[in-house]
C-alpha cells in the first residue's frame, strides 16, 4: 500500500489537494481535503460528473496524480465522449496509465438475493485499479445507483460506511457525487458518511435564463468562502468565480489614462481618467456613447495597452464599420491583438454567468482597459439591484487589477429610478450625453456629471462626430464666466431637454 507517504498529515490544518479547476482552489484556499472524501451534490444536470471528471483529468495532467473513476451510471465510452467536448481526452490518459475508468453496472432485475453478502467485489475492483496505476484520486459517480440496484439497504449502508473508512485508509482524495434530495442534501443521505467536505452545485432557471452556482456547504477544519459562487461550463471545463465582493481595499493610482479625446482630457483636469477607475457614459439612443467608448479603446490600443470590449448590442464587425465612419480604426487593433471583442447577447445566460465569462476573459487577457457597451441591456436577465450587484463585483475585480473600466448606459442621466441611479455611486467618473433640438437641428450635448478626485470642467459642450473623430465644442461661450451662471445655464438647458424628449415620445 502507498498510504505511508500520505499518513503524516501536518498538525497545522488540513493538507489540500488542488483540483486545478479554475476558481475552486481559490475559494477552498488550496483545494479539497487531501486523503479524504468530498461529497459533491446537486440536481440533475448541475455539473457534478463534470466537476469530478475534471478533478481527475487535471490531477493526472497537471499534478501527476493518477486517478480512478468508478462510473455507476454512464459507461466508459459515454463518459469519455461527454468530457471530450470540454477538451479532456480521457482515452489518452487511460492509454498512458494515468486514469482507469471502471463502469460498474448493477441491474436489480438481474440480481436474486439469497443470503448474507457484502460489497467486497466493489472494494476489490477499486483497490486493484488504485494499485495498478498508483492512483491518488478517486471518483465515485454516483454511489446512489447502488441504492436502486441492490435490494438490501441495511447491508448497503453498512458497506458504504466501511467504504469511506477504507478510502481514507487508502489515502486517496475522493469525490463522491450524489443527486440532490428533497429534504436532505442527497437523495439517500450520503452526507451522513462524508463529514470532511461537502460542495453543492445549483442550476437555477429564472426568466428562462439558467444560472449555475457553487457553494461550499461544509469544509471541516478549514476556512472557506461561504457564498454561492457563480460557475460556468464552457469549452475549457468548469470555472468558479472566486470573487463575490472584494471590499474597498483596491490600490489607488494617481496615474492618468487618456480618454481618447483631447478635449475631454482637457475637461478632466487636462489629463484624462485616473488609471484603474470606472467611467459611466449615459445617454439616449444615438447620442454617441459607443463612439466615446471606442475612442477610448482606440487610444489605449495605440498607447500599447490592451482592451477587452464587451459588447451586448453590436457584433464586432458592425462596431468596427460604424467606428470607421468617424475615423476610428479598430480593425487593426483587433488584428494586432490589442483589442479583443466579446460580443454576447445578454439573454444567452444569466447575470452570474456573464460575470464568470467576463472574469475569465479578464484573467486570460490581462487587459489595460475594459469596455462594457452597454450595461443596460443586462436588464433582460436581471433587476437593477442584481445588475448593480454584478457590476459592483466587476468593478471591485477590475480595480484590484488596475484596469480602467468604461461602461455605457442607455438613458438620460437625469431620469430617476433608472439603472444609472443605482450604479452611478460605483462610478468614479460619470459622463452625460443628450440630444437637443435647437434651430431645427438635433445636437449632441456633452457634460461631466462628476469625476472623483480631480478638478473637472462643468461646461456643457456640443459633441460632433465626423471623419476625423470626435470633437467637443463650447456652444455656450457666454456661460463660461462664473460657476453660478454656469449652473443656471445648465439647469435651463436641462429643463428644455425634458420638454423636448417628452414631446418627441408622444
Amino acid at each position: 500500500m502507498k498510504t505511508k507517504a500520505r499518513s503524516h498529515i501536518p498538525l497545522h490544518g488540513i493538507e489540500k489537494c488542488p483540483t486545478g479547476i479554475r476558481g475552486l482552489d481559490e475559494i477552498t484556499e488550496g483545494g479539497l481535503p487531501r486523503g479524504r472524501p468530498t461529497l459533491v451534490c446537486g440536481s440533475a444536470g448541475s455539473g457534478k460528473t463534470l466537476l469530478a471528471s475534471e478533478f481527475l483529468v487535471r490531477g493526472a495532467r497537471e499534478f501527476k496524480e493518477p486517478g480512478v473513476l468508478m462510473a455507476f451510471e454512464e459507461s466508459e465510452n459515454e463518459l469519455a465522449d461527454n468530457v471530450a467536448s470540454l477538451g479532456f481526452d480521457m482515452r489518452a490518459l487511460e492509454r498512458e496509465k494515468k486514469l482507469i475508468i471502471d463502469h460498474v453496472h448493477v441491474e436489480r432485475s438481474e440480481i436474486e438475493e439469497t443470503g448474507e453478502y457484502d460489497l467486497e467485489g466493489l472494494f476489490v475492483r477499486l483497490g486493484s485499479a488504485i494499485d495498478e496505476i498508483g492512483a491518488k484520486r478517486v471518483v465515485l459517480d454516483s454511489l446512489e445507483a447502488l441504492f436502486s440496484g441492490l435490494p438490501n439497504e441495511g447491508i448497503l449502508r453498512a458497506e458504504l460506511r466501511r467504504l469511506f473508512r477504507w478510502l481514507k485508509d487508502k489515502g486517496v482524495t475522493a469525490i463522491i457525487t450524489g443527486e440532490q434530495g428533497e429534504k436532505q442534501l442527497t437523495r439517500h443521505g450520503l452526507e451522513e458518511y462524508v463529514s470532511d467536505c461537502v460542495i453543492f452545485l445549483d442550476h437555477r432557471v429564472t426568466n428562462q435564463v439558467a444560472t449555475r452556482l457553487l457553494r461550499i456547504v461544509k469544509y471541516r477544519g478549514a476556512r472557506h468562502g461561504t457564498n454561492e459562487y457563480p460557475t460556468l461550463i464552457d469549452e475549457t471545463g468548469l470555472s468558479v468565480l472566486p470573487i463575490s465582493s472584494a471590499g474597498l481595499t483596491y490600490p489607488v493610482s494617481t496615474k492618468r489614462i487618456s480618454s481618447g479625446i483631447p478635449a475631454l482630457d482637457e475637461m478632466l483636469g487636462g489629463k484624462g481618467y485616473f488609471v484603474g477607475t470606472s467611467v459611466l457614459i449615459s445617454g439616449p439612443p444615438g447620442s454617441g456613447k459607443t463612439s466615446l467608448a471606442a475612442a477610448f479603446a482606440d487610444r489605449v490600443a495605440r498607447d500599447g495597452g490592451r482592451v477587452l470590449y464587451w459588447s451586448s448590442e453590436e457584433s464586432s464587425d458592425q462596431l468596427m464599420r460604424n467606428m470607421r465612419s468617424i475615423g476610428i480604426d479598430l480593425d487593426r487593433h483587433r488584428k494586432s491583438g490589442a483589442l479583443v471583442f466579446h460580443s454576447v447577447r445578454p439573454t444567452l445566460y444569466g447575470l452570474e454567468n456573464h460575470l464568470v465569462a467576463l472574469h475569465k476573459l479578464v484573467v486570460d487577457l490581462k487587459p489595460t482597459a475594459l469596455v462594457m457597451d452597454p450595461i443596460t441591456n443586462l436588464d433582460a436577465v436581471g433587476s437593477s439591484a442584481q445588475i448593480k450587484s454584478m457590476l459592483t463585483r466587476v468593478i471591485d475585480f477590475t480595480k484590484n487589477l488596475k484596469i480602467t473600466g468604461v461602461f455605457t448606459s442607455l438613458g438620460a442621466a437625469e431620469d430617476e429610478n433608472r439603472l444609472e441611479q443605482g450604479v452611478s455611486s460605483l462610478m468614479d467618473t460619470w459622463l452625460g450625453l443628450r440630444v437637443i433640438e435647437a434651430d431645427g437641428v438635433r445636437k449632441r450635448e456633452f457634460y461631466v456629471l462628476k469625476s472623483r478626485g480631480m478638478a473637472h470642467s462643468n461646461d456643457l459642450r456640443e459633441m460632433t462626430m465626423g471623419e476625423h473623430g470626435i470633437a467637443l465644442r463650447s456652444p455656450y461661450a457666454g456661460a463660461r464666466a462664473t460657476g453660478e451662471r454656469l449652473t443656471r445655464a445648465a439647469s435651463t438647458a436641462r429643463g428644455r431637454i425634458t420638454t423636448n424628449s417628452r414631446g418627441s415620445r408622444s
Partner: protein
Amino acid sequence: MTQGSSARKGSKPVPAPERWDLRLYIAGESARSRLAIANLKKICETHMHAGYSIEVIDLVKNPALARGDQIVAVPTLVRKLPEPMRKIIGDLSNEDRVLVGLDLRPRK
C-alpha cells in the same frame, strides 16, 4: 426472429437436461465463502443431474476478474450456461431463492 423459435426468454423454467456452467465469486477464505460453496454444491447435486461445473474465483487472489462479470457483491453466483446469464448474490442459504434465481423454479 422466426415465429415460434426456441429462443429462451426471461424467467421461464429451464428444462432439466442441460449442461450447467457456474461461477462463484468469493473474497478470501471466510466463513461466508465456505458456506456459499457448501450451499452451492448441495443444490447442484440435488437439482442438476445432467451435470454441472463450478468454478470458484477468489477475488482476493484474482482482483482483475471482478470487472469482467460486473461483480459488486460477494459472494456472487453467475450462471454462465444455460443462457441467459443470471446473477445471484448472497451466501445461497435461501435455497428457494437460489432455485428461482437459476430458473429451476418459477417466479411467483
